[in-house]
């Protein structure tokens, strides 16, 4: 059952990610990215990360991507024009990526014993309470710093995007 669920969502994620790369239209890419995120949220649930799953939905899919879609619609650029693709990128890039994945997979297999496997609900440390406690005790300072970062980001975004009032 676990395997089935995982495979379903993993398939969705990979297909959506591929779509993201292949599609020439930003909106399509954005939607497929949302798909990736949603399926990842499901996978997080499977890994016992309830809070992270919810955060994934609320923050990523619910807020960030809305922002993206908003901007895409605002600019409404349309399809990506077919331009002279710089050749070496294609030639070098694709094999490079395959090598990349292969290497990582090789390493993963080498480092991790295949024995340990994921069972749904075997790890409950990821519920909101545990995360909250950890976040406000051990990781208090990073948390505060991050909030300051957010504040700065807000100000920066406003400064950048507002019309110059002459």
């Amino acid at each position, binding site marked *: 059952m676990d395997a089935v669920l995982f495979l379903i969502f993993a398939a969705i994620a990979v297909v959506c990610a591929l779509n993201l790369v292949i599609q020439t239209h930003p*909106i*399509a890419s954005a*939607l497929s990215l*949302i798909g990736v995120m*949603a399926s990842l949220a499901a996978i997080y649930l499977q890994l016992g990360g*309830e*809070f992270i*799953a*919810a*955060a*994934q*939905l*609320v923050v990523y*899919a*619910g*807020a960030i*991507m*809305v*922002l993206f*879609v*908003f901007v895409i*619609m*605002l600019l*409404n650029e349309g399809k990506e024009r077919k331009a002279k693709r710089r050749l070496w990128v294609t030639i070098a890039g694709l094999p490079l990526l395959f090598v990349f994945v292969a290497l990582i997979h090789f390493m993963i297999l080498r480092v991790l014993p295949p024995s340990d496997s994921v069972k749904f609900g075997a790890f409950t440390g990821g*519920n*909101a309470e545990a995360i909250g406690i950890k976040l406000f005790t051990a990781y208090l300072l990073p948390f505060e710093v991050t909030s300051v970062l957010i504040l700065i980001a807000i100000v920066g975004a406003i400064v950048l995007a507002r019309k110059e009032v002459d």
Partner: protein
Amino acid sequence: MPYIVLSLIKLLIVVLVLMHTLAYLQWVERKVIAHVQLRVGPRRVGPHGLLQPLADVIKLVTKEGMLPSHVNTIFYFLAPFIAVLFALIPMCLIPYGGDINVFGIHTTMQVTDVSIGILLVFGLSGMGVYGVALAGWASNNKYSLMGGLRSSAQMISYELPMALAIAAPLLILNTLSFRHIVDGQTGFYFGFIPKWTIFQGPVPQIVSFVLFMVAGFAETNRVPFDLPEAENELVAGFHTEYSSMTFAAFFMAEYANMITVSCIATLLFLGGWHPLWPEQYGSSLLPSLIFGVSGLVCFSHAARPARPFDRITLPVFGVLFLGLAGLFLIPAGQQILMPLFWFGAKTGTILFVFIWVRATLPRFRYDQLMGFAWTFMFPAALINLFVTALGVALS
């Protein structure tokens, strides 16, 4: 796997009930607005227009779907799908009552209980915006685009105060699962004031309840926040180019969102399915009383019919109501029905408020809308949250 089967059964029930509620909610809305405006409202199809929703559905299904030219077909059809999807999913997470035993099976009146239910519902309903925005963008029409942009901006803006308003009662109840939220509101002060979060100490959450409701209006694009479909500015906003089923989908989505918001409000602030006053003062007799009285009223009207066919219809309703009243008196039925009754009553009240407001208030201007969100709602919610946190910390 009994679990799966059970879930499927529950799902079926929920969907059926929901669909009918959606259909009839629209009838109710039309009726209520009509009466507010001193009109009669739909009454041709069936007695008191009771079959109107059926007619509408048939019409929408059979009507030809217009596909405007130059639209981005995929997204054009994807949009209503997304909208409906994310409007309906949250229904699976909402509990309508406590634990029950039916035919020896012990289960809960809820499709699935997630320990972070409210967060999940929040996230999912937040994703409904894609439907609207995409629809606006895909139908290749400047009014629609305006509508889509407006709705996405509006949703993002109002999600903040909404989240903050939700956070305050969660602080008091100290859980994220709907079930525990409701359990946290059991009991009464001095034996008669219910321990709902709007009354519960240390800090009664009336403010955040109001804020939540206002934000809910905005999230569901209801009057006075229905800028995305402001007729007099944008024809019909994001669904200008939609007709027949696709249009119906958006319609459904809007009502489903309304119901979701009302349910969350009920669960979070109004104590879910807990009665308004304790058993020993006969709260369990209330439904029988109401239905009984309405049944008698029906009979009395049937005696002096205003319209000829009332002579047939009203007695039927009278019997129906009296039957319901009897049903509520059966002890075995009570442990299932009472929670549903109270839950439905509270949710219904809130839905009525939705309709009432729509019939009453004018629409915001767009800048007012945003300004309201950022300069009033957000600070107010923050302050409320702060005060609550202070109270919780001190108690």
